């Protein structure tokens, strides 16, 4: 079955938006156990909130356009 190109693009965008939030949580876990591979010089809370907003947008994109 051929998947339309537009659908694939939305699927990719939605997945990336979800992935960035997962990565942020993984990074914060590694940071907590002092195993973070690098330092991020940005306000943690702002980064977390923006990441959460993007995560929600990603879920919506996946549900609506990537189905």
């Amino acid at each position: 079955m051929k998947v339309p190109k537009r659908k694939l693009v939305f699927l990719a965008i939605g997945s990336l938006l979800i992935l960035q939030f997962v990565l942020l949580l993984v990074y914060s876990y590694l940071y907590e156990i002092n195993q973070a591979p690098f330092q991020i010089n940005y306000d943690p809370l702002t980064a977390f909130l923006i990441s959460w907003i993007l995560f929600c947008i990603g879920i919506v994109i996946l549900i609506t356009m990537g189905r």
Partner: protein
Amino acid sequence: MRRRTRDLLHNRFAAFVAKKVVFYLIVAFVAMTFVFFITHLMPGNPVDRMIASLTSGGPGGGQTYLKLKAQLMDYFGLNKPLFEQYLIFWRELFTLNLGPSYPINYPQSVLSIIILRLPYTLAIVIPVLLLSFFLGNWIGAKAAYAGGKRSELVYFFSVFSNRLPSFWFGMVLVFVFAGVLKIFPGYGLASLGTMSSWKLSYFLDVLEHYSLPFITLFIIYVGGWATGMRSMVTHEMDSGYVRYSEQLGFRKNKLMSYAERNAILPQVTGLNLQLNALIGETAILEIIFGWPGIGKMMFDAVGADDYMLIFGGFMVIMVVVILGNFLIDILYGFIDPRIRTGGRQ
């Protein structure tokens, strides 16, 4: 090139977008003018507040006080005629130079405070709007298909949750979940004594504090969407094209998808209205839950006669509302092909 320009001018969707842009620019102009004059006609003076906070007491009197007041009025440009202040305000607004926040946060710039606070408000508004829209519409559509008692039950709970006043419902949830059950914290951004860091435990702590304002608005808005969608799908399922397709032997899932697509259009139009209402309700809930977003910032600014912070707050809310409405208008064009392809041969 000329043909493309001509096509663009004849494209109804382009004309629709252009009309919206002009309309929203007028809305922005009128709203900012109102905000300027309302705040300047308010009783009280930010300079008096500033002197009071500097001297840890009342405004006092005497020559020193009057001299200091005159100097500060001159420094902040408050002794100029109101219309001149209005023109200066527009000049500063276009250069995004909103000046310092005074008297409460002096000498922090208004823009830096707003940039810091905006993600807190958006972190509630955007997820609540998007997630409640999808869950509410899904619940409403399922209820309409199910029919009978289940549909009535969903309708009852949807109307009930949608009609709850957010400030009251928020306090009820604080009482139940924070006071009695002690599952969620009821106030603030994070537990007392915690420092902002990249630790997972800190993020989880913030999420715990975020839960109650989010749940409050989410329940209210899910109800609203579910009520609308249930009615719309019920209406669509009764329409001629669905009945005809049914007679032709279309599968039930296909019929549902047709009905749902048509039923969602008025719901998308409703997104504009809900976004506007949601921003207002979020501002109130921020005060109740101590969530440090734009709403709480403006509440503090109004109490302290901080003109520029009030302007900044209103400006940001206005930009968010206008941008949101504009995006929803464009989205509507994409969802409804009649608007997108209108005028194209």
